[in-house]
């Protein structure tokens, strides 16, 4: 694949030529990215399944393994050794932790082309090890991250600009989700709701093509069974639609507890007097020990999900017990440094909670309510949607996997309030909270995040007037005249910044007095790491031409001119608006 050639500009060039090239480009972009991400996603899911069989994690393998000492031994050894390997792998990542969907969101939202391939590869492998060795983590987070990173890699190969690059990243994510869930519409929605966070017609076409490619690959090339399959479920009474929002709000609270638990264990793990390499191993050992009695907590938990849908598979107290265990196991594994997602465990926890709610109602209304599976699905969606911050995606997944319109509307009713409630208490999603804790706050919109992600470093100019700290006013005046500037920075003998002299202050000043006496008292200074957002806020009450930029030792680096700053501000916002609204 080579970079599509630019449109011909000769006299023969017509509008239809350009259109054809543009369409060809969009098709190539979407299909190519979709195909690559889909094959990767498919191989990833298949490899997890294979590892789970081979390492005696999947129930089928555990059942088939002869009884005896091997099974309990493997139950403890496999997650422990898996954790050790994961710990070692993460040493090769700069931040010493796996990357995930948060990195993809940050790269796209801040329009910074920085989704590096190396940590993506290492995180992908460590997720595979985590999932393969039975850690209680999800598989979709790694898939989103790998799909996005693959898109970013392609974007770099195609030397596309940031806007197109973001679209390719979204294509990779959409295809990975479409493949893994066998749900192309959900893939498209997820890419828009979580990654791009706007709806641009220009992005829709390639993203849709990528998702469809993923769907085709999922079905035609390497068929994988869907995560969950529900054959039939009906809402028995119309008044039950009034119950679903209540379930939704309760589920949002469960989601908040779940997310806090993960972050809490993470904080605790940081204070644990143990080398970072050993923490996932310890987590694996703990998990394996508990799994000797409750094998439900191992792995993704597809069987638990299935049982939550079946009336009578769990007693009520068992629903609660397994829910709490799964929640703790996931927080334990993720917090202690296993690599993986938050989505699949949320599905399990949510469906258990929904089933608990439904069976409680069943007792209250003496069995007059809908089948348990309806509530389990609603709980599943309403816990998951706040965790990933994608209510529409969660609802559409239900529609695509069940084909039941009634169930989808029930899911919609339960999600309606869930995201609102959870976002008020916790934040838009688990990923946004992770980013906020790392200093990227998306809660005040994309423009703030964008401006806060750019520094003024590139705007620093040395085309300014300086004078020695002991200079007289006349010297400073002379320096300003020479530099054609309206201000002059005073610098001492070691290059340290002393103050700034503004022209309007020395207009009446005698020549032979120290210039220093006329420096402003609360002069603003910035450094190269000051963000455009902070710089704009600092300049709110500023009158003048430029601001001194100093380094950590207070040495003068240059000046940032207000006009440059405003131009940068406008450019950043204009690029964002073009990405979000322009059609060509």
């Amino acid at each position, binding site marked *: 694949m080579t970079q599509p050639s630019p449109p011909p500009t000769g006299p023969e060039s017509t509008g239809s030529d350009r259109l054809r090239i543009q369409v060809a480009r969009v098709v190539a972009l979407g299909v190519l990215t979709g195909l690559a991400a889909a094959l990767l996603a498919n191989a990833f899911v298949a490899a997890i399944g294979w590892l789970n069989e081979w390492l005696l994690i*999947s*129930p*089928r393998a*555990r*059942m*088939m393994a002869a*009884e005896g000492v091997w099974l309990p031994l493997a139950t403890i050894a496999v997650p422990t050794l898996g954790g050790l390997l994961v710990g070692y792998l993460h040493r090769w990542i700069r931040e010493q932790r796996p990357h995930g969907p948060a990195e993809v969101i940050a790269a796209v939202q801040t329009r910074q082309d920085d989704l590096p391939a190396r940590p993506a590869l290492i995180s992908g492998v460590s997720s595979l090890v985590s999932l393969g060795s039975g850690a209680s983590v999800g598989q979709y987070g790694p898939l989103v991250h790998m799909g996005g990173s693959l898109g970013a890699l392609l974007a770099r190969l195609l030397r596309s600009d940031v806007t197109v690059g973001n679209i390719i990243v979204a294509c990779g994510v959409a295809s990975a989700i479409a493949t893994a869930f066998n749900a192309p519409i959900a893939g498209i929605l997820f890419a828009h709701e979580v990654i791009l966070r706007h709806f641009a017609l220009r992005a829709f076409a390639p993203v849709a093509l990528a998702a469809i490619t993923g769907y085709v690959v999922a079905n035609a090339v390497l068929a994988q*069974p869907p995560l969950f*399959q*529900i*054959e*039939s479920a009906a809402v028995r009474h119309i008044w039950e639609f009034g119950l679903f929002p209540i379930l939704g709000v309760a589920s949002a609270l469960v989601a908040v507890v779940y997310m806090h638990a993960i972050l809490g264990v993470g904080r605790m793990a940081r204070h644990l007097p143990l080398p970072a390499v050993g923490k996932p191993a310890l987590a694996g050992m703990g998990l394996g020990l508990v799994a000797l009695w409750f*094998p439900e907590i191992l792995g993704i938990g*597809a*069987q638990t999900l*299935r*049982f939550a*849908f*079946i009336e*009578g*598979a*769990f007693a009520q107290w068992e629903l609660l017990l397994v829910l709490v265990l799964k929640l703790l196991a996931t927080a334990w594994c993720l917090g202690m440094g296993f690599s993986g997602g938050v989505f699949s465990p949320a599905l399990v926890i949510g469906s258990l909670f929904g089933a608990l709610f439904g069976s409680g109602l069943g007792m209250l209304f003496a069995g007059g309510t809908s089948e348990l*599976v309806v509530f389990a699905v609603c709980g599943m969606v309403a816990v998951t949607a706040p965790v990933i911050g994608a209510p529409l995606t969660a609802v559409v997944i239900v529609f695509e996997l069940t084909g039941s319109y009634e169930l989808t509307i029930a899911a919609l009713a339960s999600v309606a309030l869930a995201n609102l409630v959870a976002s008020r208490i916790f934040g838009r999603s688990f990923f946004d909270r992770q980013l906020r804790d790392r200093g990227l706050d998306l809660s005040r919109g994309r423009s703030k995040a964008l401006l806060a992600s750019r520094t003024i470093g590139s705007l620093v100019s040395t085309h300014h007037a300086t004078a020695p700290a002991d200079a007289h006013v006349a010297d400073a005046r002379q320096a300003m005249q020479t530099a054609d500037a309206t201000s002059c920075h005073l610098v001492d003998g070691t290059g340290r910044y002393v103050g700034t002299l503004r022209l309007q202050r020395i207009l009446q000043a005698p020549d032979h007095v120290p210039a220093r006496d006329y420096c402003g008292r609360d002069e603003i200074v910035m450094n190269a790491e000051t963000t455009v957002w902070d710089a704009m806020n600092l300049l709110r009450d500023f009158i003048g031409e430029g601001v001194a930029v100093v380094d950590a030792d207070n040495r003068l680096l240059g000046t940032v001119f207000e006009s440059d700053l405003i131009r940068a501000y406008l450019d950043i916002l204009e690029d964002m608006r073009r990405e979000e609204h322009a059609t060509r």
Partner: protein
Amino acid sequence: MTVSRALPLLLSLLVPGAATPAEDALIVATWGGSYEAAQREILFEPFEGEGNGKIASVPYSGGLDILHAEDPPDLVDMSMSEAMAACEAGLLQSLEGLELPPSAGGIPARDDFLPGSRERCAITHTIFATVIAYNRQAFGSVRPRRLQHLFDLEEFPGPRALQATPAGNLEWALRSLGVPRAELYSVLSTQRGLDLALDQLDTLSGSIRWWRDGDEPVKMLETGEVVMASGFNGRFFNARLDHESPIEILWDGQLQERQTWVIPRGAARPDRAREFIRYATGTEPLARLAERMAYGPARRSALRLVGRHPQAGIDMGIQLPTHPYNAESAIKKDAKWYAQTYHRVLDRFEVWRKRSSGRKTLGADQESRVGPPT
């Protein structure tokens, strides 16, 4: 086990038409009834006619006990899962080196056989189905349409005849609870899943009659002793054909399994047994057998040759369990899973069956004959 010593004697007494085995006869353990009759006509007699000596049959209705006998038969017509379990236990001869003839059109055997047909000790000859059937006179205008109706005693009351094996019953119990086909064996692998399946079967307790011999469910349906029954699709088909029985097959949830030829480790005539397998898995005999028994042949070339029933003249293609029309919701039996878990699942099932019959089942006197080998 002493039963096997008595087998030839039993056979001569119980199986009509079976010859007393001559000293050098090839002993084939197979399933009796119309099935064995067809085998005799299409496989045994032509094979004998080619100067291969006599073939004598001994009755067999599943399980591994027969392999533990002091002088086991030379060949057993065994289900794939049991064959794999027996192979694992070292009770069978390896058939890996056995070369099978190409199809009549020259397609090599390895491309002609359906995938998964050959295992170390077993060669698949047919794909049969255990299906649910019902007596169409037992219900009014509303008839069972789906697998779930097996468990619906309200709408379809009456006794049910079920095979006294875990296979089939467990799968159907879970399917009726909405477990998708792809998840059946994963769910059955958990304690909770197995309990769930047995609990669902418990809802029928008191209405179950257990059967072991393939002809029993046919008779029970015909006499009206039961209203629904599981059974082998070929037996039901032949009953309809031969005595116009009012039996209807419910293809929904049919459990497909491979039926294989195996040679016990202690077989006295292994060479002739191998020669027989080569003959019996040829394109032509497989196609003719399918026309008589309505079981799917393991070779693609044979499937293409399947025509009409020799006497009745009905098109047999659509009667096969593997026909796309019938196989839409077929459950493929996980032979590997059963092979590895054979004794544990069987023990569990038998314990449940005893407990359940202790409560209220009819035919509580029936004892397990397929228990673990001693």
